[in-house]
């Protein structure tokens, strides 16, 4: 535990230190260095807890009214913490390279200050064991990430996104406040909370807090909204596609790769701590499914790479939540097998998605860094000039689409298997949700594949569509390094998926006795799947060699794209992402909220034809409209103070009379 304490201390120290030096270089080295160091320190206990789940407690003797601050790492914490720390460390390395260009324009201190705070806060969230500490870390996380999001506050769009994020996360946190401050609340919440755990200043203080238990359903709902809003659960997650792209890419990576998981973590804890009721599972499955489909559909409609990635994060959060939902149903309906696989799938996907999404954001940032262009339809053919970025992006794309041999496939396999088993079990009320999960899962997989082929093809393949694309340049080593590391990790996660699942089940064992045994067949299945992956790679290698051998010495020419002999190909007539996605986007028009306007060629000598597509987030529009309405109504009440002192005195008199009437009646 000493290492863990050291990890937190390092983060906080790093935060302060990075503010001190005047020179940009020193500050960024200090800030990122401390972050990396802290992560390494934290990984030691996390890894230990992974291999042998145990409940370590780090108790901070903290004076009232906070009471004792308890931090603990058990299997589940470790499962969330380990990838988090790895990604944060890589993000720090990447960030140093990414922020280097802001030298002279900005200070290096603040970003690294907030980055370290964020690291500490996230670590705290995953390990806090008393409600007050959880709240503290949660709010710290929200704030530091907010400040990181609005790092480029010169840009109005960024300010807007950051504001939306701030408001959303505050409203979400309000629910957690209640969850964590209910009398005798514990974290993770206990069934039928006992009273008086809050450390008051006096015995009487504790006594005054004695009250009855709160219905578990209420706790669940509070957690669902509070944590769900952070996880991007529709409709509370509207802020996500706005805020994540606005942040600097290494921060986006941490937000999407790690911070979303804090929401999943919270809900998982609640589900494991309380005895779920069936309707919890139904709710989670339904909302998760909607979130997933909405997310991928939204991704279809985007025109900027980072926004697309943010939407896809929403999709994956949906998948995780569906897993949680099935797990909850399994627990509620006495189907331990489904429970184990559902939760297990969610956990495995947490790990995988973290890796892939962070890598994708790294790549997106590197493209932005190399071309200065956000819009995909302005890019093209970047692969040639940014080989590392392109290759790593391809790997990550395969992973995020859940295609073999990457880890993403494993998590979708487990989830799907869980759904099918749910179908087969003779438990009534389990089949319909399972069917829903299965359908949503496959639907999302297919659409995600379309999205990422399109994105990869438009950005990296074909011919350059703009000056920016032709002048692209590969990113510095500091940025390439983390990308390569993650790209290597991705297939390993696929081949070793069985291990990941095994660890997840091991972590779940304390809460779900028998999880390991029940999940064993699936683990074996994953091993065989890994053999198939191996075969696949072997076949590929064989074909590669074969082709090499066949073509050796033959005349291999390069010419223009044949394209059925089309005479005058230009870069502009290539399929763009929006045209690529258009058929699917129209197929799911109701979800994408995409409105296209076509100007058809007309007449004997058609002058011009065009297709303009635009998508807006309907949920967000709805919220903004509502808030605007309320705001206007409230502003109308400003008329109450028109500066007339007579009227003011009248207010006093009126209050007096009213209160007298109340008092003496």
């Amino acid at each position, binding site marked *: 535990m000493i290492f863990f304490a050291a990890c937190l201390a390092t983060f906080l120290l790093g935060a302060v230190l990075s503010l001190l030096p005047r020179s940009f270089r020193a500050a960024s080295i200090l800030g990122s260095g401390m972050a990396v160091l802290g992560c390494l320190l934290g990984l030691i206990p996390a890894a230990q807890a992974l291999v042998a789940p145990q409940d370590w407690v780090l108790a901070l003797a903290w004076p009232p009214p906070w009471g004792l601050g308890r931090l603990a790492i058990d299997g589940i914490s470790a499962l969330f913490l380990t990838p988090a720390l790895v990604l944060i460390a890589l993000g720090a390395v990447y960030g140093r390279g990414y922020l280097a260009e802001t030298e002279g324009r900005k200070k290096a201190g603040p970003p690294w200050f907030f980055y370290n705070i964020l690291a500490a806060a996230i670590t705290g969230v995953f390990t806090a064991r008393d409600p007050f500490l959880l709240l503290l870390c949660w709010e710290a996380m929200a704030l530091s990430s907010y400040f990181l999001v609005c790092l480029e506050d010169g840009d109005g769009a960024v300010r807007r996104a*950051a504001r939306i994020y701030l408001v959303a996360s505050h409203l979400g946190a309000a629910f957690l406040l209640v969850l964590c401050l209910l009398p005798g609340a514990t974290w993770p919440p206990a069934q039928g909370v006992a009273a008086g755990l809050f450390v008051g200043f006096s015995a009487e203080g504790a006594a005054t*807090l004695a009250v009855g238990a709160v219905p578990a359903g209420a706790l669940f709902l509070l957690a669902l909204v509070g944590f769900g809003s952070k996880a991007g659960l529709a409709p509370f997650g509207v802020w996500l596609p706005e805020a994540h792209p606005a942040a600097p890419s290494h921060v986006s990576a941490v937000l999407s790769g790690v911070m979303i998981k804090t929401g999943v973590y919270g809900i998982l804890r609640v589900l494991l701590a309380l005895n779920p009721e069936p309707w919890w599972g139904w709710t989670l499955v339904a909302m998760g499914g909607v979130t997933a489909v909405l997310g991928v559909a939204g991704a279809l409609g985007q025109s900027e790479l980072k926004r697309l990635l943010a939407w896809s994060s929403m999709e994956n959060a949906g998948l995780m939540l569906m897993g949680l939902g099935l797990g909850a149903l399994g627990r509620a309906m006495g189907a331990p097998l489904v429970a184990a696989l559902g939760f297990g799938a969610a956990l495995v996907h947490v790990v995988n998605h973290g890796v892939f999404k962070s890598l994708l954001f790294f790549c997106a940032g590197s493209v932005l860094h190399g071309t200065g262009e956000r819009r995909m339809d302005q890019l093209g053919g970047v692969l040639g000039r940014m080989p590392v970025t392109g290759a790593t992006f391809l790997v990550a794309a395969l992973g995020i689409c859940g295609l073999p041999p990457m880890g993403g496939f494993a998590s979708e396999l487990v989830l799907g298997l869980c759904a099918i088993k749910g179908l087969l079990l003779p438990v009534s009320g389990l089949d319909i949700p399972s069917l829903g999960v299965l359908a949503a899962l496959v639907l999302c997989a297919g659409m995600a594949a379309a999205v990422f082929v399109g994105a990869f093809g438009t950005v990296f393949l074909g011919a350059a569509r703009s000056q920016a694309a032709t002048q692209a340049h590969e990113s510095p080593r500091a940025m390439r390094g983390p990308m390569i590391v993650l790209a290597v990790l991705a297939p390993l996660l696929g081949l070793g998926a069985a291990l990941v699942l095994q660890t997840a089940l091991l972590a779940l064992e304390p809460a779900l006795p028998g999880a390991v045994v029940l999940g064993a067949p699936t683990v074996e299945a994953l091993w065989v799947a890994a053999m198939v992956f191996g075969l696949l790679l072997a076949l590929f290698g064989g074909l590669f060699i074969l082709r090499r051998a066949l073509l050796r010495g033959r005349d291999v020419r390069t010419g223009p794209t044949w394209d059925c002999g089309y005479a005058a190909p230009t870069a502009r007539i290539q399929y763009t992402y929006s045209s690529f996605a258009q058929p699917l986007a129209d197929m799911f028009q109701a979800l994408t909220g995409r409105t296209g306007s076509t100007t058809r060629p007309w007449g004997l000598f058609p002058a011009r034809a065009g297709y303009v597509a635009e998508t807006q987030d309907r949920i967000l529009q709805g919220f903004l409209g509502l808030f605007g309405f309320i705001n206007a109504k409230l502003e109308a009440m400003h008329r109450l103070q028109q500066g007339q002192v007579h009227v003011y005195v009248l207010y006093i008199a009126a209050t007096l009379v009213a209160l007298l009437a109340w008092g003496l009646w």
Partner: protein
Amino acid sequence: MPARWTILAPAAAGAAAFVIPDDRTRRGLLAATGVAHLALTLLAFRVPARSWFDGALLLDDAGRLFLLITSVLFLAAAFYTVGYLRRETTGRRQDMVEGRLFSNSPEARFTGCLLLFLSALSFVCMAQNLGLLWVGVEATTLASAPLIYFHRHHRSLEATWKYLLLCSVGIALALFGTYMLALAGGGEVSLGLPALMAAGPTLNPVLLKAAFVFLLVGYGTKMGLAPMHTWLPDVYSESPSVVALMSTCLLNVSFLAILRVRQVLAAAGQAEFGNDLLVFLGLTSMAWAAVFLLRQTDYKRLLAYSSVEHMGILAFGAGIGGMGMFGSLMHLFAHGVAKGAMFLLAGNILAAYKTKDVSGVRGLVRALPYSGPLWVAGLLALTGMPPFGAFVSELSILRAALAGERYILAGIFLLLLAVAFIGITTAGMRMAQGQPGSNLTEAGKPVAAIHESWSACLPPLGLILAAVLLGLFYPAPLAEVMATASRVTGGF
């Protein structure tokens, strides 16, 4: 013994300030008094309280708390004022809003009244007799009126007039309530707090209730509870930021006055009634403030309404009782230091940007390398974010509400907090972010960043640090005093 000197020393210094001709000595005196007052206060924490005028004046634990926060804020104000008065140009100058010419009222009067104000505040903290309590509160009003009219232009004059009239009316009602309290005791008991509490059960309940209503409305006007708060935004926006800072103490001691009265009510077994009224007025104030915080265009008024909101929180906490009372005592400190810092910073911003318009201020963080970040921190401290004190105190209050199973009230409380949060951060961050506009000038010519003086930055910095401290750790003695105080004033 040190307790009574917290009244006498400032009074004497104030009297002296009127006659001292030399500015430098007077400023020195001001700073010295600030230090001395804090020293005396801390000393008063050590030594047991001695009564004065046979128990009419006595510094009990509640008094100690309020005296401490007053003293801390005054120290910050004093140091800031020294620099402020040095910066203030004498003679007629341009009014930044309308461009008319105006001049300051004599510095001697300003300093003198400031000190007398402090003395009156200390007096209120010690008063154990409701009559004297009233005298003290009224004295604070009168001592502060000239301060508001430091900048002699018509807006400040208007503010002064409203302040005088509204507060006098309110305070008059409080006086009536005081008498009624006496009458409730059959006119036989004196207005001494101990006597009244001793006579508690025998007091006539109807008269008692009526008395409490009058006192609540009366002192509530001074405390800035909606809808009696209307003087507050005008005063805060038109007076020098130091004055605004000190009027935070004014609100605090009015709150103390209400707590004193509630002690009597509780002794008479009528606590429920009082608590309901407090909760009601508290939520009303929070709601009213929230409405005016949204789309607020003047950042000094913004701070003023945030004060109204926080007074509402105090009242709410006190009304919830138990842990809530304790929470609102914590909040007293948390809000005091945070708000103090914000007022001083607002003064710096006003000096740099020459406008009170939110839309006129951009890129604060870049333009004012010290005040800017502090301003952002202050925003968080005001809106109850960690690691600042308000986070803890608001949570304690919320917790008490939940513990009392008053879920609806807790929900409303949270909602109003959220609205206020949105209002404050939206305006405040808009000022902090972006690129500084061209209206940023130093010595007539536009500059990228202002060079800030120590006297302008250190006091707010100190206060912000205090706010952080309160968010993470309470010094043991303070905590103990706070516990007893909350017990005395009707908590547990």
